[in-house]
């Protein structure tokens, strides 16, 4: 188990190093000189050169990469050129919107998907199964921004249970959670639909396995065999999907953040790209990559907890 964890950790570190090099390289080759962009079209070449020197753009690539990575390790993400504030502060504010939103959506989708998937699998071919499968088909098909607007229309404009957008901050936690509810539901719907389908098919695969027949021969009822023997074995593919979904929810909330006017990471990265604010772009992307890799690391460890066969493989 420790060998396995160490092996996964080594691959995590290597992934991070490779990712940082790729991100740095890609951002460097984006056309457009940030200094020229910030100073406008009428700027004199010597002014631009001065700004480039001030921003460190005249340094060699390697030096810039090392200072960027070195800074991040100490929590110094540099200074945003457009906002003129430390990138760390910019990210810090927004992470507290995006991260809770992603976790909230993930919890919602899991709460819906697990029972739905298990129910459908245990009553395969029944009316309930057909209904759930139909609903998930719909859930996968509906674009989440459209669903978001419908939610706003019903719950914010007509029923006035929630506000249509904005975020009041975490000063009042209840109000904050309430503000995140509609966006979380909008994000969770397609995820729940996918997850329920994966849960169902994975469980059905397991229910056809020989060890389920063995369990039945021991005197377990169908239900008991499903809960005690099939479920845990069915979790591996489900965990994989959850890991992928979390990454998507964290970074992919741009449209939902736009619909609900949430000051999240998605909006920040969108604005920074438009403004050629390379430092912010680099840092946010790196942060997202870091999160994704961490989540995958945790998923890998969970695999090993679920399946003893993976513990021996490094």
């Amino acid at each position, binding site marked *: 188990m420790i060998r396995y964890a160490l092996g996964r950790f080594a691959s995590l570190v290597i992934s991070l190093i490779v990712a940082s090099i790729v991100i740095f390289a890609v951002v460097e080759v984006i056309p457009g000189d940030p200094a020229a962009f910030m100073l406008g079209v009428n700027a004199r070449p010597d002014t631009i050169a001065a700004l480039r020197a001030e921003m460190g753009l005249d340094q060699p690539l390697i030096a810039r990469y090392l200072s960027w990575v070195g800074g991040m390790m100490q929590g110094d993400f540099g200074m945003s050129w457009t906002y003129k504030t430390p990138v760390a502060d910019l990210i810090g504010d927004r992470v507290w919107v995006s991260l809770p939103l992603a976790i909230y959506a993930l919890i919602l989708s899991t709460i819906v998907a697990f029972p739905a998937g298990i129910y459908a699998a245990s009553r395969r071919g029944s009316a309930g199964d057909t209904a759930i499968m139909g609903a998930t088909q719909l859930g996968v098909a509906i674009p989440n921004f459209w669903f978001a607007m419908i939610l706003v229309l019903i719950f914010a404009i007509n029923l006035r249970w929630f506000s249509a957008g904005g975020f009041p901050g975490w000063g009042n936690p209840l109000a904050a959670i309430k503000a995140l509810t509609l966006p979380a539901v909008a994000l969770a719907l397609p995820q729940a639909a996918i997850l329920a389908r994966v849960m169902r098919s994975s469980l059905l695969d397991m229910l056809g396995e020989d*060890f389920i027949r*063995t369990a039945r*021969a*021991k*005197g*377990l009822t169908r239900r008991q065999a499903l809960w005690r*023997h099939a479920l845990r074995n069915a979790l591996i593919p489900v965990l994989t999907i959850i890991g992928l979904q979390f990454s998507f929810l964290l970074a992919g909330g741009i449209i939902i953040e736009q619909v609900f006017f949430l000051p999240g990471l998605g909006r920040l990265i969108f604005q920074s790209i438009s403004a050629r604010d390379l430092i912010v772009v680099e840092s946010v992307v790196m942060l997202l990559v870091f999160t994704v890799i961490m989540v995958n690391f945790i998923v890998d460890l969970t695999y090993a907890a*679920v399946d*003893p*066969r993976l513990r021996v493989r490094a």
Partner: protein
Amino acid sequence: MSLLSIKGLSVQIGGTPVLQGIDLEIAPGQITAITGESGSGKSMTALAVMGLLPQGAAARGQIMLDGTDILQTPEAALCGMRGNTMGMVFQEPMTALNPVQTIGAQVAETILMHEKVAKTEARARASAMLERVGLQVGPHRYPHELSGGQRQRVVIAMAIAMRPKLLIADEPTTALDVTTQARILELLQGLVDEFGMGMLLITHDLAVVADVADQIAVMQHGRIVETSATADLLRNMRHPYTKALFAASTHAVQLPEAQVDEPLLQVQNVVRDYPVKRVSLFGPRPVFRALDDVSFTVGRGERIGLVGESGCGKSTLTRAILGLEPVQGGSITLDGAPVLQGGKPDLALRRKMQVVFQDPYGSFNPRHRVDRLITEPFFLLDNPPKGAARDQAIVKALTDVGLPAEAAGKYIHEFSGGQRQRLAIARALIVEPDLIIFDEAVSALDVSVRAQVLDLIADLCRKRPLAYLFISHDLSVVRSITDRVMVMQAGKIVEQGETEAVFADPQHPYTQSLIAAAPKLPELAHAADAL
């Protein structure tokens, strides 16, 4: 007073009858074997007794087990009986256990399902039961850490944890090596004696049946055609199907005299190492030696057998001979040329050897017609026949293996298992090779079909000097179809010689143990008296 009494059991699935009028009695302490070929309804009978018929199956008749009619018992009560009154052992020990639970927990579950006892007590009793079935490892191990034989012991421990009155064993040793099979059969017999259980043993292997059963029921097409005490049945078979079945399993092929003049395949001091997981981060990577200094020669037109238990290196050797994998030492030459040179197999050389695998279905693309399937090896030829010549080659290959020419237009799913294996042989023959490797080629076939395919294989080398490398775990098959035999153990060839000489007087202790462990069908008419 019988323990299990089946009367007039008929089962239909979707209107198709799978069992018809089954009558069977089992007394406590008695082993009754059901035998027959695949699809005859053996397993369905077992599932009916367990009350585990597939959904959509309709059963009529009566299955009285210890005074209860299984067919009239509601599901909830059946759950209370399964694992308690009747236990079941299955064919595939590799998949019969839940991979994510320890073996101790899985055995304890049987006890916890049926008795209100503390978890610790159930665990303790499970450990004791695992010890009783002769398992040498502790209860905290996971199934993947165990061998097939060990896993089968766990499955048996699970089935008998509550000391059921009836134990059903469905092909319990079919997936196991002969020496393991012998030990598992011995264990089952011991348990039947000790617990006074009745046992319903389901197996296609007549030698196993003759060895352990008190009573034999022969099934064909969903019916029991003959039931009798073992000794009586062996002495006096009444039903023609029974006679045919026993004749087929003792079938001896007429192998033509081999005309060996020159060596064809030469394997010299071959070593094959597989890298395994590192023990330390630095230091050299450890290796597993799958083939250790293997040397032998197959002459042109010679039929040579290779026997050994699973994991001994038989498949590794096959891959090395076919030039699919490099070897770390020694040389393999066919007709004087190395099979693998510079990491690339020589196509001209590959034409001279073909292989027939165990699973005929898995080795054919289901979307292609037979003509395309069996002409696949043509890509090995510089100048493959086209048009009429191709059609002729197809017809010849099909007729050679006893199939009609019309078969060329069909798909693989339209053929039975035996026909598929004939097609696999046709595919091998179409490029007129000098050597055919049969890798467990008849192991999955029913006895009667197997006898026909073996006859075919023997016939083929009558027409022209074909050399065979016949790899099998089944000693009786190897004995009948080969001139010489090699015995392999842990990557080494421990004994080789004339087939009859090796079988009659094995020299190496491993060969002796293999031959001793293999269940033998008694010489029918007279041997029954000795039972």
